[in-house]
């Protein structure tokens, strides 16, 4: 119980990753697969964001003219958040390409069910 409460952010991301993987592997609808893919990506982004947070810390802006030395413990770590801005862009691009591919598939096969697409491909 202690392990779960003190590290709940890790548990949250593990559960989300598993949900995402389940969606990608088990669901036969291409849209649902893409949603699973998104959950998978967001879980990693949330994981990164959570490791930057600290209890009792403030935003990492140093006010000019501060007398005392900067203590790292007083500020949350901004770097993981900056990295995740890039990762979010990557995630959005992934979703965009995936949706474009689904539209292409729908135009050709008139369905977004994986099984029917495979059937249609076998027939040719």
């Amino acid at each position: 119980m202690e392990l779960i409460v003190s590290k709940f952010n890790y548990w949250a991301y593990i559960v989300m990753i598993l949900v995402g993987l389940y969606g990608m592997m088990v669901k036969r609808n291409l849209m649902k697969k893409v949603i699973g893919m998104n959950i998978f990506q967001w879980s990693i982004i949330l994981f990164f964001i959570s490791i930057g947070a600290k209890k009792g810390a403030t935003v990492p802006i140093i006010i000019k003219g501060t007398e005392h030395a900067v203590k790292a413990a007083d500020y949350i770590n901004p770097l993981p958040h900056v990295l995740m801005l890039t990762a979010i862009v990557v995630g959005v691009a992934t979703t965009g390409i995936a949706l474009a591919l689904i539209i292409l598939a729908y135009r050709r096969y008139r369905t977004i069910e994986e099984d029917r697409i495979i059937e249609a491909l076998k027939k040719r």
Partner: protein
Amino acid sequence: MKAHWPILIVALPLIMSFVTFMTGICYRAAAYHLTVITAAFSTFIAICLFIQVIVEGMTISYHIGGWEPPWGIEYAVDHLNALVLLATSLIGLLTIIHSRKIVAREIGGEKTHIFYALVLLQITGLLGMTVTSDVFNLYVLLEIASFSAYGLIAVGRKGAEFAALRYMIFGTVGAGAYLLGVGYLYILTGSLNMSDLLRLLSNLYGSPTLLAGLLFILLGLAIKMAAFPLHGWLPDAYSQAPASTSTLLAPLFTKVVAYVIIRICFTVFHPSFALHTYPLIPIMGAIVGVGIIVMGVMAIAQSDIRRMLCYIVIAEVGYIILGLAAGNRLGMIGAILHIVYDMFMMALLFNAWATIYEHLKSSHISAWRGISKKYPLEVATFILGGLSVIGIPPFCGFFSKWFIILGLVEGGKWFLLATLLLSTLLAAVCFFRILEQTSLTHGSNTMDDRSEKKTSLSEGVVLASLSAFLIILGAVSGYLVSFIEKIPFLGAL
């Protein structure tokens, strides 16, 4: 200018990709020329960097924006990636020149500039992955390369968009796993720079978090490089793609990711960590060892020649892992040589295949019956590439394989040695079957149509120069080995 080569080799194709796209909107014919000029300039920079590394004999480090390495992003060129950069950019250039006519036919007039913009993005990603020395930057560039690959594959024949979507789902899991691994390393050290990580990790090797991090990174990269049990996406994606795409992707992508595995396992971690402390690479080698035999059998079972080549690509990437799994200098040298040589061999095979495919409009093995009389140059270069893949002595494929075999013997990995030899035999069966088919004279009935097409001069020159490269690279392999031996981490083995 010269001091900025390491960033220019990445930034130039990136910027030119947008320029190509924009100029293509009003003036489409320029797209091809812009792409070739950019690729040629990248190759020129790669040659300059290669010479600079030879002359100075040390790592060229470039700090982006003038920020010092642990805080800013560092691009570094050393003996390992100078070689990969040169091979990647040169093959990119040759392939683009070769596939001009094929692109014009397959993609059609109004979309060629988009295609070439994606090609340049692909080259950006591949060169960037090679040159970067920052693990997160590497993730971004890996995704740039992957995204352009999805786009390039999806424009293929019926079924390509579905294959691309599948590749994408696999690829996203791979990239996600890599990013997760990077996150674990970041939690431990607070750094993303490779040489800084090596320093900071040195007293953390007992940590389970570190092991988990490396496992995730390896899993992600293994998916991207199509290592055996995770190769499912590759045959579909590369064989449904347009011919011009598979000639570009198949020689380069998987090999560059194999380079990244070497970079992460042996320069971010101490070489003994993934080899001896936790034998991850030897375990991967054992799995891949089984895989190369399976891939050999699968290759023989294919009736479509491009699909056969796809399985051979997976087997060839497996050899690189086998060389690493040997765990000694010789095996490592063989693996690095094989990255470079395999790029050239696959480039020749796929380009020769694409030329013949353009003439015959069919990739089925029965259509290739008796074509050697009609297309002697094309078939000869294809067979030459095949002989090199099998490992016949004068060609370069022999030398890299020889070093891998020496490494496996020295390391006493008899099982891996047996799988490698057996897989060589299977590759021989594959290519001799094609040799037999193409040189059959009787029953070559389909070939009497008068609409005979000729291989254009540029295509012929590319094929001839790639064939020449296979022989030259074989001849200079002694020099290359002495070059590779200067890689710092080889001393630690």
